């Protein structure tokens, strides 16, 4: 178990370092000289040289990378060229919004997806299964952001149930926070719920027809207990995997959802930084998102071993 833990930690660290190199080289490959941009068009060579020295651009690339990585480790990503604000402050202000949206959406997706999956597996071949399957097929085919736009039109504008845009911090007023974030989270969660529904159903159907379940039933165990203790527990592994695989989609979907509902999150920051060519911010955002992705996947891998002891024994490290 410890060996596996170390292996996974080491693997994640290598991936993270590689990712940071890709980001670093990618930003350096972009056209334009930041020193020239800062000094202005008519600056004399001495000024430009001074700025280059100040930014550390006169040093070799490996030295520059080590400086960049060292600063990044302490959370220092420099200053935004668009706003002049420290990048870590900008990320600090927007990251919580994105994380809250993602967690809220995932909670909705897991709850709705697993319920629909269990219903479809238990009522196999009857109308609840068709309803659940039809819903997930539809949810997978319809573009989320289109549903978001239509939801604003009907649920917000015509019925007035939800606000069309805006955000209130959780610490400020939890009820208002929920009022503003529920519709975006619901929209973001729908397609993920569909994927979870499909996987839960498939895994539950497999488990419920297995021999050990037949034995349990033969012993006289009630069907509720069979479904919960055997079916659901086994399908948890699949659902955990799916959540890990969906993180990328959740981040991408989050950017779009933030844009539709005008939420002040990382997605908005990312788009703004691309359109203003704010390289320090782009660099930091990419690195933070990638790091988050790697860390969450690591946590999920470790979670497996808690859910399913068989994995611990067989040693997934190979």
């Amino acid at each position: 178990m410890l060996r596996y833990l170390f292996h996974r930690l080491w693997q994640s660290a290598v991936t993270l370092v590689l990712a940071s190199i890709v980001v670093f080289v990618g930003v350096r490959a972009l056209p334009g000289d930041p020193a020239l941009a800062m000094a202005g068009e008519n600056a004399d060579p001495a000024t430009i040289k001074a700025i280059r020295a100040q930014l550390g651009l006169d040093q070799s690339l490996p030295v520059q990378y080590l400086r960049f990585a060292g600063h990044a480790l302490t959370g220092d990503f420099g200053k935004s060229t668009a706003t002049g604000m420290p990048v870590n402050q900008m990320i600090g202000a927007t990251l919580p919004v994105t994380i809250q949206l993602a967690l809220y959406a995932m909670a909705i997706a897991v709850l709705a997806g697993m319920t629909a999956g269990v219903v479809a597996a238990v009522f196999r071949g009857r109308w609840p299964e068709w309803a659940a399957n039809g819903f997930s097929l539809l949810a997978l085919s319809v573009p989320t952001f289109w549903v978001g736009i239509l939801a604003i039109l009907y649920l917000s504008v015509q019925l007035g149930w939800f606000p069309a845009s805006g955000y209130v911090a959780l610490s400020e007023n939890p009820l208002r926070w929920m009022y503003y974030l529920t519709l975006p989270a619901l929209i973001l969660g729908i397609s993920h719920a569909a994927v979870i529904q499909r996987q839960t159903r498939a895994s539950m159907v497999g488990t419920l027809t297995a021999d050990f379940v037949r034995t349990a039933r033969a012993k006289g165990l009630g069907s509720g207990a069979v479904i919960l203790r055997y079916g659901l527990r086994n399908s948890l592994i699949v659902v955990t995997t799916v959540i890990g695989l969906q993180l990328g989609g959740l981040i991408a979907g989050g950017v779009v959802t933030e844009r539709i509902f005008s939420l002040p999150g990382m997605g908005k920051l990312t788009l703004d930084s691309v359109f203003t060519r704010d390289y320090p911010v782009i660099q930091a955002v990419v690195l933070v998102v990638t790091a988050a992705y790697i860390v969450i996947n690591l946590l999920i891998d470790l979670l497996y071993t808690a859910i399913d002891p068989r994995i611990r024994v067989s040693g997934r490290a190979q």
Partner: protein
Amino acid sequence: MTAIAETPAETPVANLGRVRGRVVRKLLHNPMGLVGGALLLIVILAGVLAPWLAPYSPTEVHFSTPFQQPGTVGFALGTDDLGRDVLSRVLYGARASFEVGVLSVLLAVVVGVPLGLLSGYWHWLDTLVSRLADLMLAFPFLILAVGLAAINGGGLGNAAIALGIANIPTMIRVVRAETLRLKDTDFVLAAHTMDAGAWRILGQHILPNALSAIIVQATVIMPAAVLGEAVLSFLGLGIQPPKPSLGIMLSDAQQYLFRTPWPAVFPGIVIALICLGFNLFGDALRDALDPKTGK
């Protein structure tokens, strides 16, 4: 964006013709697959024939007739804020979606299939390629598209490259798994004993048998790419105006949603139909290629 299709079981090369007949027969007996296939046929034809079907140029503005309702004479699906014909724009938008979809599938196939074959066949390469695929999976496709857009400034090519690259790792995994499985089959061992070289075995024995898995994975990538293109263009990272794209139409329509919702409704319906078609047809194709299901 990183769905992996279930791998259909093997179909021996020897009776490929008979297998093909069985696959077609099974497809014809699957009502959902037929609906999906018909949907696909209609939207693909509409996209391909857009220059002949569209009543107007997709960029032609009619300032005197903005915000026409659907059903207006001359504008079957109405007009947008600049009086552009929504029907023409939807047709050309579907065409652009397919262009991005096909290009990204090609990219994923051209890069992913050889890497999958090689890493499945040679163990020493496997560690390297699999690590690479893991690394690529760690970059969410949108972040990749953001990076590419920062360098290239968006466009159809940018969207296709970003979506193609995003789908390379899953293609590698699918083909690698197939290669690993086929490597130990009797007919590959027989080829070995007949002194067939590695390239010959990969090209003549393993690739044809892995084809069904590759095709199924392509039907998974296509709708994902169509959705991805809409998302990227909606965000301003994909196709650039005035070129029509379903994503751009939705982003434009959101600005005047409260005046008329129709320009936002139709592009979404088209995206949904394309994806529904691919999902239904892809599911049916996977079942048909799997010898364990049905007759």
